[in-house]
């Protein structure tokens, strides 16, 4: 048994175990047959039959690079160990399913970097998502991410936040902000506003200052904006990552319905990557919308717009040298890397690049729902991203003291890496540095 297998064997996760306790091979095979015959794109067959097993995808994967090039962590290796036993194995055992679940949910961030490195364009993230879909239908999902998906089902946000708590947070932040700007309002349910601002659950739960900062930026930029007062305010989506596409559709419908009901021109999203993927790419398509029915603008694009149009002005640039971590879902997922750099350039004196960067960035290790799988998998996640720590250390050696990244998951992932590898760096959102440097 290789090291990766030993690590998988040692994992104990209540969500996986409780699902495996109901294991029935016939049922699992029926599920796999249904997924392949009714749901899977024919691209699956094209990918599997045309992959020449050249191994060129390997060097794209931060897990592989961080794990001393252990082939079990290479993208093709992960497909071999997770998808192929389900599709081609004569016998499927609970161990097969458990291994497939652990690899697909926690050894791959669905960051799509490998697609860029595979000369044939095999979409490994798609293949791994199929494994997750099968595992979800079999009820074998890590506890923490399933709990988050349950929160989505129960409350339509990822943090079990009830409607009064959401509204209360908005009133509270308005009250706080009025001490700084007495005229400020956080408009709730403003029908006909230009912009609906949507955030993810952790903002009202743990990072309410981001709502405050957003309100100040909106106010000073003179934006006609609103927050929804109902379900649909949260744009996050762990169901997309568990493989619960039905619930993903329900969440996205609620989100877009809210924007349509409020008659806004566009949705501006807070600094989150996975939510952008869900709203811009995955969720809308599942529902039958080619593109988001209401234009979706990520915070990076929005900040770029208001800064370049001089709707807000920067009072004094941040003197501390900063570096920038490119979040996969808005860089490989939307090409916002240059805009982000321009925003950083407008607000900061010294910018230090990490290498590789832009589309070739390494994922933070938290994306794709991996951080949401919780403590049983944290060690794997952090050790599986040593290359990111090396990138940060290199930037630090050049003088960077702050790493800016416009994504909540990246914050979580980088915090763990910084802590584990003892890197003395601060992590900030773009809105943090804009708020810190703007004229108020």
């Amino acid at each position, binding site marked *: 048994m290789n090291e990766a297998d030993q690590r998988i064997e040692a994992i104990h996760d209540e969500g996986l175990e409780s699902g495996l306790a109901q294991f029935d091979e016939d049922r699992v095979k029926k599920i796999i047959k249904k997924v392949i015959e009714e749901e899977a794109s024919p691209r699956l067959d094209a990918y599997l039959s045309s992959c020449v097993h050249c191994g060129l995808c390997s060097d794209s994967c931060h897990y592989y690079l961080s794990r001393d090039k252990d082939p079990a962590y290479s993208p093709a290796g992960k497909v071999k160990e997770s998808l192929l036993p389900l599709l081609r194995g004569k016998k499927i055992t609970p161990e097969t399913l458990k291994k497939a679940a652990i690899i697909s949910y926690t050894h791959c961030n669905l960051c799509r970097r490998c697609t860029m490195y595979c000369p044939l364009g095999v979409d490994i993230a798609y293949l791994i998502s199929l494994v997750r879909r099968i595992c979800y239908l079999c009820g074998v999902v890590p506890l923490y991410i399933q709990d988050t998906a349950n929160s989505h089902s129960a*409350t339509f946000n990822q943090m079990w936040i009830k409607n*009064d708590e959401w509204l209360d947070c908005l009133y509270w932040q308005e009250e706080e902000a*009025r001490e700084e700007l007495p005229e400020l309002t956080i408009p709730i349910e403003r029908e006909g*506003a230009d912009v609906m601002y949507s955030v993810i659950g952790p903002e009202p739960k743990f990072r309410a200052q981001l709502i405050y900062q957003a309100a100040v930026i909106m106010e000073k930029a003179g934006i006609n904006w609103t927050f929804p*007062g109902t379900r649909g305010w949260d744009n996050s989506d762990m169901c997309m990552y568990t493989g619960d596409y039905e619930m993903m559709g329900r969440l996205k419908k609620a989100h877009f319905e809210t924007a*349509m009901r409020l008659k806004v021109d566009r949705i501006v999203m807070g600094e989150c990557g996975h939510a952008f993927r869900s709203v811009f790419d995955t969720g809308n398509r599942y529902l*039958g919308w080619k593109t988001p029915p209401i234009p979706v603008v990520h915070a990076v694009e929005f900040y770029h717009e208001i800064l370049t149009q001089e709707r807000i002005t920067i009072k004094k640039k941040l003197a501390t040298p900063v570096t920038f971590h490119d979040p996969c879902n808005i860089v490989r997922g939307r090409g916002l890397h240059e805009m982000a750099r321009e925003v950083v350039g407008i607000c900061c004196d010294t910018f230090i690049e990490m290498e590789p960067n832009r589309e070739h960035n390494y994922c933070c290790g938290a994306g794709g729902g991996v951080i949401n799988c919780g403590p049983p998998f944290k060690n794997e996640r952090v050790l599986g991203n040593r290359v990111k720590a090396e990138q940060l250390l290199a930037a630090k050696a050049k003088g960077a003291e702050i790493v800016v990244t416009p994504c909540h998951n990246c914050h979580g992932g980088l915090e763990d890496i910084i802590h584990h590898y003892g890197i003395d760096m601060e992590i900030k959102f773009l809105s943090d540095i804009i708020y810190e440097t703007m004229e108020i």
Partner: protein
Amino acid sequence: MPIAQGTSPIIWDTSSGSMSCMIPCPVDAPSERFPFWKATASRDGTRIAIPIQSSPEECQLCTWTLGEPEPTRSEPVLTIADLQPIADQDFSFLCQTDEGWTAVARNVPWEFQAEFAWNLRVSAGGNAACETQDDRRYTPMVNGNVWSESYENTYGLTLAATGPGSAAVVQTTPIAEGDLTTFLSGCFTLGTEKGPWSGRYMGAFTPVISSDGTVAAVDARITQQDYTIAVNDQCWPTTWPSVWAPVIHPQGTSVWAPVKESRGWTLACDGEVAWPGRYTQLWEPVFAPNGRRIAAVASPEFGQWTLALDGDLMKTRVDGYLRKPIFSPCGSRVGCTGMHKGKAVLLIDDHPMGDLFDKVWDPVFSQYGSHAAAKIKRGPWYTVFLDGMAIERRFIWMRNPAFTPDGMHLIICGIEKSGAHYHYTREFIALK
């Protein structure tokens, strides 16, 4: 008697021409900061109410009445929310004071004070309800009376259009974070003012209730992968991988809902598939008020949207989205709003009307369907789109237009800028 959608109560249907009153711009507030977006006109259009911040901490509800020079001002409160008209001339809203939250309906505050109140609902029949939270228990209230039971959480409180009934999704059991077992055991059901249903579901989403309050239904998640419709505490015998919110026949005789079959979405009635077609998407079913027709938004192909009327697709396709269809009171006409090629579009009986507005609100029809009108926005101005033509007015705020029950007039109510001040106008437009 139910008030048909898009028409207005008859008692004040005697005026003609227009009436207006001046809303002086507060001296200490820049005009662009005047919160017109919070304005609400009474149903008869004779009054307009706007919550106005009287200090950084307090606000008041200012109400102007046609023919009266001065507005009336409510007692200062901390917050006013969910302002909406009730009955003909009154307003209802939620307000926060130092003691907590309460609701005010027809100028009378309810007796309760809760830690929080939200989702104020007002029915055409004049009932008002809201959801409240006190001491971490959640209890809806209807006309000032609390429901018989309180819950871990409530969601989507809805009121019967005319009867006294109310329904909401309720969570009956607490779920600790990380407790998958309790979640899987089913902690949600539909609650009414009389108590919760006996069935427990893993999830319940959009409660609906018939206009007389006798039938309630909800789209429910039965297991992690199975969904169905529950009607008056009985689940349909069939389950699907997904369903959308149901609709109840106006006479309460049947319940319909979009369901996802392996070949696509279709419409089911009382547990059985009722439409032959299968679509990429199908949702937002609506009955004509007479119950003879049913329309829904359908996507016959990926990225294309149209209306399906009684199972037949309309010809017009849009590439953005379509919203819930609206029938005329007589059921002969159907319209809806949407987006096509990035522009707002209004569909009336399969005829698209676009390019004339940036935003458009749900259309209203006259009693017998001979006229259709919709509130629209062009640039910064609001006006009305009537039978294919925009009325040349420039309102900075307006409410949805309404037809008089006799179909002789269209009533528009809006605020226009006039010098340093604003004028609220109610106008009757004679129809041919």
